């Protein structure tokens, strides 16, 4: 395999808690996260709200500094110095979740894209600038381009806005795109368009993509590798098909079971692992996370070990890995529903 474009190791982020009586306490938003992005491949980061996915993306986009861990771009460690940041932004771009908030309502498409182009090509002007702007619009399939260039954001639909946001990110010719739930605010009917656009960018431009989502079905559609996050920790990862077809962590199993599947009827009597429990529980409070494996209060297989220490990583032959005591204790078969 080729060298990774963007690699984050043991990334952690703690946010200080403000308020009376909580001096010195922190929210452990992300703990020891590892992300590796390769040219021309898409990694999905899956997890429920509050699991720290967005924090990982924002750290990778240098929106705020990490508490611990390192980020390497093309093998070189990234610093937060102003000039270093600028050249980093040229390589790594973030696509925001909300296309209604991430475009300045007072600027036309021409200005937004034109600025994005000119920040890194300072001498770009006139006809050439116009040509490159139109080229960007063509790249994200906003045709007829001559019409879209003079629109204000409020004249565009959500899907069209998200295309502009993607075009703006592409303007700097990045090698990495970080998509922070890029389709979650869009109508279901246009989500597929955006997913196909991202897939096209991966194939044609050879971009490395981090695709963050809570929707495992879209991850399955788009991605090559899936990583699952729970309460700020990476609990499982690996090639898409292995993770989805044979999840090795009970939490992945829960996520898969909770995504609607037309093939599985409610009345069929086909009980999943979590059907017995009426209450699936809530994600833990990250100011005071549970000891050991953070999933143990919700896990139907929790053992004593789970309450005490976080399990080591178990590697499987096809590249899949998981942090779960079941595999350390040779009880992995319970996940397949066998006794």
């Amino acid at each position, binding site marked *: 395999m080729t060298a990774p474009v963007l690699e984050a190791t043991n990334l952690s982020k703690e946010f200080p808690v403000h308020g009376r009586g909580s001096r010195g306490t922190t929210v452990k938003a992300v703990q020891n996260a590892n992300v590796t992005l390769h040219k021309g491949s898409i990694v999905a980061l899956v997890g429920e709200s509050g699991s720290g996915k967005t924090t990982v993306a924002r750290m990778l986009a240098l*929106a705020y500094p990490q508490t611990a861990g390192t980020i390497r771009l093309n093998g070189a460690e990234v610093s937060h110095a102003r000039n270093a940041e*600028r050249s980093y*932004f040229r390589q790594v*771009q973030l696509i925001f979740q909300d296309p209604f*908030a*991430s475009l*300045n309502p007072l600027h036309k498409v021409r200005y937004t894209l034109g*600025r994005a182009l000119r920040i890194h090509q300072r001498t770009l002007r006139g006809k050439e600038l116009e040509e490159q702007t139109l080229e960007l619009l063509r790249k994200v399939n906003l045709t007829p381009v001559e019409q879209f260039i003079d629109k204000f954001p409020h004249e565009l639909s959500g899907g069209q806005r998200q295309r502009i946001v993607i075009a703006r990110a592409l303007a700097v010719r990045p090698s990495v795109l970080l998509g922070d739930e890029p389709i979650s605010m869009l109508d279901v009917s246009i989500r597929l368009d955006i997913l196909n656009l991202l897939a096209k960018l991966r194939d044609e431009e050879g971009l490395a993509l981090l695709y963050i989502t809570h929707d495992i079905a879209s991850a399955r559609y788009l991605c090559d590798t899936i990583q699952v996050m729970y309460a700020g920790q990476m609990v499982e990862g690996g090639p898409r098909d292995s993770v989805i077809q044979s999840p090795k962590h009970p939490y992945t199993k829960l996520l898969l079971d909770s995504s609607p599947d037309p093939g599985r009827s409610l009345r069929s009597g086909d009980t999943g692992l979590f059907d017995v429990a009426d209450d699936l529980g809530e994600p833990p409070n990250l100011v005071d996370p549970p000891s050991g494996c953070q999933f143990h209060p919700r896990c139907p297989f929790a053992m004593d070990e789970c309450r005490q220490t976080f399990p080591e990583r178990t590697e499987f032959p096809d590249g899949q890995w998981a942090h779960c005591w079941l595999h350390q204790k040779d009880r992995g078969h319970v996940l397949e529903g066998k006794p």
Partner: protein
Amino acid sequence: MLNGFLRNSKVRIGLGVFAAFLLLALLGPWFVSAVMHTTPRTIDYDALGQPPSAKHLLGTTLPGSDVLAQVIVGARGSVFVGITSAVLATVIAALVGVPSGFLGGRLDHGLTAFTNLFLTLPSFALTLIIAGYVQGAAWWVIALIIAAFEWPGGARTLRSQTMSLRGRDFTVAMRMLGESKTRLVFAEVMPHMTGIVSAMFLRACVAGVFAEAALSFLGIGTTGSVSWGTIISEAQGQSAILNGLWWWFVPPGLCIALLGTATALVNFGIDEISNPRLSAANRKLMKRFRRAARTAEPEVAR
């Protein structure tokens, strides 16, 4: 947006009155000398303290000066001081509030402390003392003193708005493209505050006119020149109220009130645009819609 702004009748009236006063301030002295052939200090010994008449449209003061001439010439003193102090106050508020909110950190702490200090000072009392100290100062000195105590409220507003806009996705997105801080402030953040800044400016304008009038009334404003404040002050000094010379102090008072009303009207209009729910037109539309819905209902039922 500007179109909708100008179509608003409140804004039109407000801006019209404001423009009229501005014109008066610019051309007033020329008008008085060229058309009325008099000066505010010219004394007509045949008419001392006379009520309005054909010769003196707004009557004369007790010493025999024409009140209309005084009010017209006085507009310059009042309006110029008001506008100059408002420009200064707005600029200072922007220079303090915006960097403080945008850059944050130690600079923010420092500037906020500075703002709070000015905010808690008893501003009018201090204006009085300082104006009294530099007695007989030129009009722009008075404007400067008024501005110095007018800006802190605006700075607080701009600071909080900037802080909110700095964290919005579109600003963060442009920052992550590598946009410079200056550009972020001027192209992404500031354009969103035009409404607030213009409202602030107009309010400061009126406050400036009021403050100038108050200072002149107390006899420590600009000396030698006429302003609405000095007219009222003289009227008070010569017991105009006791003698029933209402035409002496009512016109300048009305002018001040009218200017205040005009800016209030423009501000209402700005409010309606930035908060469409306040719009009177919309309320009318909603009423019509409800009436239509009521009358349409039976038909639907059928």
